[in-house]
């Protein structure tokens, strides 16, 4: 079964507050540099792109490369001015896109 991404975001915040967002995506992050027992290169399979949007607007994104360790962990800050939904996406080398979202109430 596919692993589900892990999120840590406050449920509510004050207008204009700087909130901390933590995300973790379970993934092997196979570098493409390793060889198997028979000397054949194990093909690269990593999460190559991560994005975070809030109410449709881009907040944070990252291009990941081979050196990133398994289970990529992203921690960043965002200023929230209104209630809404954070949407996250992780793109695998094989084209699979895993998404997750989390609502926040700004009062």
């Amino acid at each position, binding site marked *: *079964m596919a*692993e*589900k991404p*892990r999120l*840590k975001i406050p449920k509510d915040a004050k207008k204009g507050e700087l909130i901390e967002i*933590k995300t*973790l995506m*379970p993934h092997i992050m196979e570098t493409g540099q390793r060889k198997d027992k028979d000397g054949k290169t194990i093909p690269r399979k990593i999460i190559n792109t991560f994005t975070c949007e809030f109410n449709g607007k881009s907040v944070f994104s990252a291009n990941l490369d081979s050196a990133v360790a*398994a*289970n990529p*962990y992203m921690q960043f800050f965002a200023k929230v001015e209104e209630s809404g939904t954070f949407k996250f996406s992780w793109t695998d080398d094989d084209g699979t896109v895993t998404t997750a979202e989390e609502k926040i109430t700004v009062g």
Partner: protein
Amino acid sequence: MIRGGTLASSAAALIAAGAILVVAGSGAQAQRAAPLELKADASVRPWVRYNGWPARDESKWSTLATISSPPAPTAARKIVGQITGDAANGAKLVADRNRGGSCLACHVMGQSGNADLPGNVGPNLSEIGNAGRTDEWLFNYIFDARVYNPDTVMPPWGSHGEFNDQEIKDMAAFLKTMKKPAVFKTELDDPDKRPAPVEKRENLDAIENPGMWALDKAAVLWKTRGSDGFSCNTCHSDPKTAFKTWAASMPKWEPRLNKVLGVEEFVTRHAKVTTGLNWLMETEENRDMSVYLHNLANGAPISVDTTSAESKAAIERGKALANRKIGELNFACTDCHGKSANHWIRGQWLGEPKGQYDHFPTWRTSLQTIWDIRQRFQWCQVNIRADELPPDAKEYGDLELYLASQNDGLKLSVPGIRH
């Protein structure tokens, strides 16, 4: 409870099977016991050591199941006159980690081996050259310290053939040159000043502890139907309530099998006969289920049966096993986690038995995997150069019950997270 017409006939058969399985000998309070697979083994046979573990064959030494190591010598070997040894070679040997872990694992020895993270299980030997020990004493203490101290935890390096006579003479010659207090490169290198490790990570936070991911997988397994069409959920549709304290009462004596069952073996045997699912111990499914069932009982104080005659007898056997010297290095559980608890063996902290059970199964960050308590037992043995037993061995059941009884009252917090 079991519902649905199509399942009715199998369900009736199951209940009938359960009804016969009445706990024998439990007196007036006979209760219907959970159906268990009673014939097959609960783990792979023949047992195959885990991938990546040392492949050494240690079958000539005692294990928790057999006693085969030679008895301790009764007298010291006579050494006439002065030992002739190569002190420079001795200095290399005491720091050689391929020969049983090196002397530095337990002793501070001046600057030898660059003094990186020496342990303090044994005395500081930096000034042993001033102690006025005879050559015969030095030789024999390394060869087999039991001739001077029957309670020693030191491996019998000569008797068990890890070092030959000449190598031991070289080490004795080296010890005679050690006459100055150790100088440590950093404070951390001094085991008497090195702070005890404290686990501060949030073990129940799925971002910090990947062991928590087992819970999602177990939730799927809970509803996975076996060949008979039944899943765990067929009978246990409200696991949160039903298993609120169950794991904290395990392991438990099982009269039908004449052994102590832990959560993991129970899951294997119960799932087999009720659903047909084959979740052998130390498979991913079994570990996920064990994490889940322990997690449901988080916060419940460990409270195993220590009063019934069978449990008392099992705990006594477990205690005897914990004191049995096994393997090439001739250690008992209690050598490290009793006599030498709260000391450093090289850079590893030796804990007391209390606190070694409430967080299992646990995530191992150094290995990126979940270990249950039986795999932890197995690793202890392979690490001290003894052959491990299959995870469902009855000896482990006794040992687990003894360990759990020493952890009585501690609250479960599973999955743990350890390095």
